[in-house]
């Protein structure tokens, strides 16, 4: 419509933009998008494996649970250090747990095995102090030796060591890193392994004790 300003009669810049710049940026962005789409997690994991091991965490490790993932996804501890996991469920709607272990404990199912929990429980025989429990739906100690400070959550039996937090729940687990060096997994198996499938898992690297 003609209530718009006229165009500048002599343009102040050359509209023939560079083909090379366009092509290079376009191709780079497409490659970056494809790489991010298919290998985002692998690249993140590889990055942490390469550069994360130097950053040994002592003291308190904050772990946030959200739909569906852990933040951070990689933790490095050293055997013999006294550490605290400060676990917080940041989801507004979902219950989440945190198991640590290796391998999978499978239940056979018509479409193939369903991983119900880890095969080997990291917490077996570990002395743990649980404190600041808030909105903990249930807690399965399994074979860990647990001391409760403050309010004791509802404890139950069955399966690996796992605290299950309600939305907004949190707790602290203080323990001395046991002599189980190597790579461990942590994950949430709630809703028949679907949280794990959706990406709610991470890795712990435990370095051998300093000699």
């Amino acid at each position, binding site marked *: *419509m*003609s*209530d718009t*300003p*006229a*165009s500048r009669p002599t343009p102040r810049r050359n509209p023939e933009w560079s083909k090379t710049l366009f092509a290079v940026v376009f191709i780079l962005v497409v490659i970056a998008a494809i790489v991010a789409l298919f290998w985002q997690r692998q690249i993140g994991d590889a990055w942490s494996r390469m550069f994360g091991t130097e950053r040994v965490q002592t003291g308190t490790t904050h772990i946030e649970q959200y739909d569906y993932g852990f933040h951070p996804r990689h933790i490095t501890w050293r055997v013999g250090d006294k550490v605290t996991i400060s676990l917080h469920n940041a989801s507004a709607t979902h219950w989440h747990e945190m198991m640590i272990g290796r391998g999978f404990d499978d239940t056979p199912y018509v479409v193939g095995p369903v991983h119900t929990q880890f095969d080997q429980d990291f917490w077996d025989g570990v002395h743990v102090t649980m404190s600041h429990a808030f909105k903990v739906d249930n807690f399965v100690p399994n074979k860990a030796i647990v001391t409760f400070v403050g309010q004791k959550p509802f404890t139950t039996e069955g399966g690996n060591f796992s605290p299950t937090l309600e939305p907004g729940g949190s707790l602290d687990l203080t323990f001395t890193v046991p002599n189980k060096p190597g790579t461990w997994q942590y994950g949430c198996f709630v809703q028949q392994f679907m949280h794990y499938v959706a990406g709610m898992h991470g890795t712990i690297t435990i370095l051998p004790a300093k000699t």
Partner: protein
Amino acid sequence: MAGNEQKHPFEAEPWTIIRRPAISELTPRELRLGRFGAALFVISQAIPYFVLVNVRWMLAGSYIPAGMNQWVGGLLPTILLVVGILFAWLGVHANLEGRKGALQGWFTVNVLLGVAAIVILLVALTTYPFNTLSHYGSIYVTCLGTAVFYTIVSTIVMLGVIFRSAAGLVSPRTPYGPESAAVTWTFNAVAWFALYLALYVI
């Protein structure tokens, strides 16, 4: 695509629309076209309000929680927006009579009304007396959020007309800008009035 490239590779694209001596007068046909486009846009944007009112009924029936503040989030923004309809059209008429100052004046008043309505709606969005984890609560905050969004849009459109008028782009012969701004404002006021009725009265 293929044929003409060899002839004038560097010639710029001819735009019949904006390569025209600008700020001339709008032909009656152009004005009708603009009005029709604005009307189609308003019709399309009225549909989300139907959805909101419907969802409000499907979720919460005619339930209204006790202790609602009738003024904040209810009557006050309604009054501000509805009064603004009058001012908006007064501005449009001022423009048609060539009184540029009056156009800018009425529209400035409307911008202030719009800002006041946005602030009051935002206050209401933070002080409601119920939990959003409820049927009524969730649709209530959604409706208020929608109202805030559209009020921001119609206020910005008003503001734009003031700028355009100052830049000399609005005249009695190019009345489309103020008119479409007034249409947008009226639409927002009426649509919010419907939401107000659905949320507070019925």
